[in-house]
């Protein structure tokens, strides 16, 4: 934010100044330089550099904000450029940089005070800074671009301060910013102590009666971040079990929490504090493919990105549109999704644990009342395509507990979430230790070579898997069974994968060979 050409001869009425700011692209931010050119002529204010309507309106906000803050709005010919000029700019977050560049160009700011400083914020007509979306993404971008200081609205300061190594200047208004740059005022130091959100009150597994199979599958899934499908009649408690998953997941590490917070900030979901829980997203089954994967003219994160490092729960998964489910296939494998819209392509992180639930048949009545024909069932099961099912590691049954158990007056004796979570955390520790330095964080993230290195089998288990592989297992399925077996052994705190682990993994894996195929 330095006048790039010093006004050595004031009579030459051309002044050029620039300010750095950051624009959100997906969940990351990239640098945008706002250049302002002031020259003599009929008073006019032109904005170039592919601005959208909200950016173009910044001219009016900046004019009013300057005047209402007791500053001068130069009645000259003003041209502002948002560089790089080839990228479309959206949103109101360029206001502050535009105002600052304008002040510098009209020599209302000391030029040397804004070296290594980026500014970011929206202006009100009165000159007050309004908070925006994506403060953490902006701060991380500024740090990566080599800036030492970032000016942000007060409300965004806490979130921005999560990016360590960057001085955050929390400024309430434009006039305060001018005071700051003139050395007449100092902002209060931003608390950079990483105040975490309190952990949300999780539902407890002890409340679930029966469901031994689903509980076990849930524990394995949580321990290795594996994908899970629950099949059961309505009212069996599939949703109830799934909602208890966050309670047994290990808390996110600092790096993971930062990723989660950055995404939530960019989507406008966070409260500025560091996320203490993994996200749990349960989009409705009418959600479109774009809603799940992200999209829009200015690509915004979809549900799978909002669930990054957490759980994406698809209730009534067979009711989702085919396009939406198929769109999940690639990100489920890669942990990342690339959305291309118009001229640009934005990458979103999408490392999720998929938990899905569906009924055994379209009528969804108990087995003895079901009158669905074979064709109805076939059609229903075909809504889940083979490639999607192939990416699901565990398929479990949810069954309504016997009525006797429901009406039992005593509290149920099920294990509480805390105990299960302790085992899950221990299993994750083992994985973390083993996978240190490989880029993978848990068993589900192991790629082919890692799987072969860390999931070694004994001869008996290999034979078992080989006989299954000749039948319903695909190559991908084979690796997934190995990873699942690895997790089951980790849950038992064993380094060696026993035959029983592989057997259990195989039993939880959906056979993709439909029994009545010709």
């Amino acid at each position: 934010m330095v006048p790039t050409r010093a006004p050595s001869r004031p009579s030459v009425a051309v002044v050029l100044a620039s300010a750095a700011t950051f624009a959100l692209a997906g969940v990351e931010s990239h640098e945008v330089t706002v250049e302002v050119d002031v020259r003599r002529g009929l008073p006019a204010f032109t904005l170039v550099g592919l601005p959208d309507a909200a950016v173009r309106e910044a001219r009016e906000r900046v004019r009013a904000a300057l005047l209402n803050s007791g500053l001068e709005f130069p009645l000259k010919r003003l041209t502002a450029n948002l560089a790089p000029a080839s990228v479309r700019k959206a949103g109101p977050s360029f206001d502050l940089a535009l105002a600052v560049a304008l002040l510098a160009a009209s020599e209302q700011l000391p030029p040397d005070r804004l070296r290594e400083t980026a500014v970011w914020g929206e202006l009100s007509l009165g000159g007050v800074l309004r908070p925006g979306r994506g403060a953490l993404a902006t701060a991380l971008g500024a740090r990566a671009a080599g800036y030492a200081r970032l000016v942000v609205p007060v409300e965004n300061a806490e979130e921005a301060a999560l990016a360590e190594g960057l001085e955050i200047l929390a400024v309430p208004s434009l006039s305060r910013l001018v005071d700051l740059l003139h050395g007449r005022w100092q902002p209060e130091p931003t608390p950079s102590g990483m105040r975490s959100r309190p952990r949300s009150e999780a539902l407890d597994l002890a409340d679930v009666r029966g469901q031994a199979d689903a509980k076990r599958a849930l524990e394995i899934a949580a321990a290795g971040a594996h994908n899970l499908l629950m099949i059961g009649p309505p009212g069996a408690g599939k949703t109830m079990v799934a909602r208890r998953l966050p309670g047994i997941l290990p808390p996110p590490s600092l790096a993971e929490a930062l990723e989660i917070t950055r995404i939530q900030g960019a989507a406008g979901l966070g409260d500025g504090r560091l996320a203490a829980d993994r996200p749990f997203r349960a989009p409705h089954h009418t959600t479109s493919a774009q809603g799940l994967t992200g999209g829009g003219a200015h690509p915004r994160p979809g549900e799978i990105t909002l669930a990054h490092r957490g759980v994406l729960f698809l209730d009534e998964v067979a009711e989702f549109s085919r396009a939406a489910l198929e769109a999940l296939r690639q990100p489920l494998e890669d942990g990342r999704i690339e959305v291309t819209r118009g001229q640009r392509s934005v990458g979103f992180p999408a490392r999720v644990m998929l938990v899905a639930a569906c009924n055994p048949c379209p009528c969804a009545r108990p087995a003895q009342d079901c009158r669905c024909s074979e064709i109805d069932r076939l059609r229903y099961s075909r809504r889940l395509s083979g490639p999607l099912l192939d990416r699901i590691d565990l398929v479990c049954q949810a069954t309504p507990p016997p009525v006797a158990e429901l009406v039992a007056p005593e509290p149920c004796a099920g294990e509480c979430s805390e105990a299960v979570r302790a085992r899950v955390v221990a299993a994750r520790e083992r994985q973390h230790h083993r996978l240190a330095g490989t880029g993978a964080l848990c068993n589900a993230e192991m790629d082919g070579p890692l799987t072969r290195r860390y999931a070694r089998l004994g001869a008996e288990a290999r034979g078992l898997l080989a006989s299954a592989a000749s039948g319903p297992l695909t190559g991908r399925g084979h690796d997934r069974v190995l990873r699942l077996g690895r997790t089951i052994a980790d849950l038992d705190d064993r380094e060696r994968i026993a035959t029983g682990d592989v057997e259990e993994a195989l039993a939880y894996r959906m056979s993709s060979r439909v029994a009545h195929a010709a």
Partner: protein
Amino acid sequence: MLHDPARRAGASEPCDACLRRGFLVGRLATRMADLLERRSGRVAEVLALADADLIASVAGADANAVRSYVEDFDVDAARDCLEAGGVRALCRHQPAYPPQLAVLADAPAVLFVKGAADLSALLGDDIVTVVGTRRPSPYGRTMARELGRGLAAADLRVVSGLAIGIDAEAHRGCLERAGTPIAVLACGPDVVYPRTNCAVYERILEHGLVVSELPPGWRPFRWAFPARNRIMAGLAAMTVVVEAAQPSGSLITSTFASQCGRAVGAVPGLVTSRLAAGTNGLLADGARLVTGAVDIVEELFGVDAGARMAAAPRDSASERSQVGLEPVARRLLDAVEAGHDIDAICLEAGLPAREVRAGLARLEASGHVCRDGLGSYHRAATTSTPALGRIQP
């Protein structure tokens, strides 16, 4: 097989009158649909009428047009048309026409046949019809396939109707053991109905025969299903119903079978199951109780043949007796057999889910249980199939 080569030598061409009659039935198909939609019991009677009477009773306002169709019928063109479609016609005056069908009063004048197998496959007293519901339980499915396998392994031919469910399973079982499947259709022999069974249809064309009373090209009519059932019953020496509710098309077939003096068998089912109402009813009425292909062989060829078949060497894949199972595995197997879901098995066996799952995987690997498309476990067939070889006398 049991056919006289001399009789086969006489099989040359279907006679003109019968061929005309065959195409006449096709021509009248839509009229019959209007007339018979609600009176399926009379289909056989109507089809037994002579040409003139048939036209008079069915064609109605269309009668004159149909009569002129019959008069102008170009037999040679029809023969060319059949040949072009790869369809063979078999008339009741040819020696190759199955005699067990020809003795019936309402036997079709001509059968349109498609498929690679020799026409002699339709002859003999070693043909068994296996029919059942279109929405079977996993148990019915398993039994139908097992019967198809067992019958093919014993060198018997399996007739069924290519419907989804039991019919298709019986065909598949027969194909698995390199048998000669015979599908009797309610549409032209070149029409696949239902479309779902396209793959099975193609394989039947390769290894067996597809038979129909309707000329090529005709879509199925509702009246044609009971008409088809009488052909299935008439072709076979024995009709076995695997699973059938009450009422059902399978019971129509078994009624036809007993009317023309053929043996009827039924696979027993759970008393509480809707799908067993028809079969258990048949058993109560005196049908032969069928638990495997051995029972069918015994019914058709006597106790000795059955005993010989039972003593024949088994293939290793079907060595699935409970003998030698660990106590835990046996308990799991019993629970699966009783139709319990996994949570109920856990409660009953007093085992945690992990051990139940691992145990079920072992049982699946050893072929004792199998899983359906939604991951539920079912008991795999226990009836052992003998290795390939001729059993009957």
